């Protein structure tokens, strides 16, 4: 909850990216008469990469953008550091409008404040791990001793201290991606853009890197925008998730919000296979205390075992099966804020459309 009050580091305001020959006319049609993606394709033969995407990334937050290939997520992330210029809309990074920066200031912004990690890693083959990790500082003209020290420190953070003098070709895929992350960390940016960094890795290594990445980002207090086509990955890593389809963001929220209230059938289908037991929390399962009293006047509230509002379903199942009355009180700061019965718990595990029914008990 604190995060919602934290400073907004990246602010995208209705971004559009239109590709094609007649982009200018298409942009005018979009901005003046609100033409849709289909209109633009039909009337101007232009492809809309991103349409009207808005998002805010707050300090310390990991923001995942999930979408299948062709959904525009790679285009969107490249507009956050202006590797791609938006056709319409604004990107504010730390309050500065990127489109207003001249080349020198844009370069400085990228060098100091926005790091990036690529799916293809992009390690330079003729440089050692240490030289690759310090490459960002090297092009900024930082003296060798200083940049090597910074590169060593960031390589230590990703566990590669033993590999400084090796060449990228001697490293496994997972290790190469760690170097990619270390390179982004060496310049000590506040924001790290991750463009499907773990997609090419095998599942075990991927999970390990996901956990390490999340832990490291939180420890260092960095903010990250993380692109992925894998909803499990988005849920594992992201504080908040935006789901993209056909260039538009169709839903933004925490994993729990998206799973409990999918915005449309597309999202519902996506989240259908996701296990809820660790995602759904007590506060979205519970019924009001008054309602419980009304249903079960015979049960005294203070005899129920207590659970925290953010206890997940897995923990609640444990508690409730131990409880004689088959119910758990949700207690926040010493105050009973709701009650969960076995029925509530079962309803919370049902698939999307019925999950809404759970709210009415």
């Amino acid at each position, binding site marked *: 909850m604190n995060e919602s009050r934290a400073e907004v580091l990246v602010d995208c305001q209705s971004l559009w990216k239109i590709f094609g020959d007649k982009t200018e006319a298409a942009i005018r049609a979009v901005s003046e008469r609100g033409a849709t993606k289909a209109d633009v394709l039909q009337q101007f033969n232009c492809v809309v990469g991103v349409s009207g995407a808005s998002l805010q990334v707050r300090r310390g937050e990991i923001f995942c953008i999930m979408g299948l290939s062709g959904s525009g997520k790679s285009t969107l992330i490249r507009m956050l550091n202006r590797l791609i210029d938006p056709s319409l809309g604004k990107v504010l990074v730390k309050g500065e409008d990127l489109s207003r920066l001249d080349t020198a200031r844009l370069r400085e912004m990228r060098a100091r404040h926005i790091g990036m990690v690529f799916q*293809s890693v992009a390690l330079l083959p*003729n440089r050692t791990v240490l030289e690759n990790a310090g490459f960002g500082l090297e092009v900024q003209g930082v003296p060798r001793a200083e940049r090597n020290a910074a590169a060593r420190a960031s390589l230590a953070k990703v566990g590669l201290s033993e590999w400084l003098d090796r060449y990228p070709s001697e490293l496994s895929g997972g290790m190469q991606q760690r170097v990619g992350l270390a390179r982004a960390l060496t310049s000590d940016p506040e924001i790290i853009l991750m463009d499907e960094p773990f997609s090419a890795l095998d599942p075990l290594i991927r999970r390990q890197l996901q956990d390490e990445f999340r832990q490291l980002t939180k420890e260092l207090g960095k903010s990250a925008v993380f692109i992925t086509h894998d909803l499990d990955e988005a849920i594992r890593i992201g504080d908040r998730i935006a789901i993209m389809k056909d260039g538009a963001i169709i839903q933004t929220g925490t994993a729990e919000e998206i799973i409990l209230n999918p915005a449309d059938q597309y999202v519902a289908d996506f989240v259908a296979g996701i296990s809820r037991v660790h995602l759904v929390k007590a506060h979205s399962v519970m019924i009001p205390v008054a309602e419980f009293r009304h249903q079960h006047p015979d049960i005294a509230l203070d005899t129920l075992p207590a659970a925290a509002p953010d206890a997940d379903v897995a923990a609640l199942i444990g508690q409730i099966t131990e409880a004689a009355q088959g119910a758990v009180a949700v207690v926040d700061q010493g105050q009973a804020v709701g009650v969960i019965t076995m029925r509530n718990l079962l309803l919370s595990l049902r698939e999307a459309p019925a999950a809404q029914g759970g709210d009415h008990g």
Partner: protein
Amino acid sequence: MDLSFLQISPGRALAPAVDWLNAHFHGVFAAIGRGVEAALSALEFVLLVLPAPAVIAIAALAVFFLIGWRLAVLIAACLGFVLLMGLWRETMQAIALVTVAVILSVAIAFPLGVLAARRPKVEAVLRPVLDIMQTVPPWVYLIPAVMIFGLGRVPAIMATIIYGIPPMLRLTTLAFRQVPVAFRELGAAIGASPRAVLFRIEIPTAMPTLLVGLNQCILLSLAMVVLAGLVGAGGLGAEVTRGLTRMEMGLGLRAGLAIVAVALLMDRLSRGILQQGRDKGGKS
């Protein structure tokens, strides 16, 4: 019916153009000629001022310390071979000629090649020009070159440059096209200047293909230098020409083998110098 009036004669149009250039820009050409001549003479002087064994020893030692013993042995063997065949002076002249020609070819071809890789329009314009440069029999270049610069080494170098530019230019363009998009994106994303992207990302990544281009440039220039013997450029080319005109098999063969030795030497040496310090990276 007499169709001779339809006959096309580009020479009739070109010859006055060459004459006109010669008349109006004589000063420019003379200055270019003097510059090239001076560079050649300086290089020749350096190569010939010491006795041959001393030059071989210095070259081998320098290569041994800077690059490695294998290359040092090869250099000493090549140079020793031409010395024993009695073609030392001619070989040094040929090396000077090819070195100056290759440096000038690369100086022209490299920037144009980079430009062509970045702008498809430039490439579209250059492509037919390069095709013509490569397919016109090389001694045809010698004619206008001699008309403008007179007989001697300068027209030989000019014709050699025209011949050496296309492979270097084409392979430079290819090399820069082959640099992965992700590397350029990386450059932009870390806030690198275009200069840093060129020197620290693009050129090192393109190096293997650039070396192939340089190799082609050297070998074609050597082949052309032989032809240049026809216009009095001296060096090994003159020996080959003499062998041919007198039907002396021995002389022709000796000069031919000396050219092979020079080719080997220049190719391996240029590779060694450019790849120095990137040996380990070359593995990937």
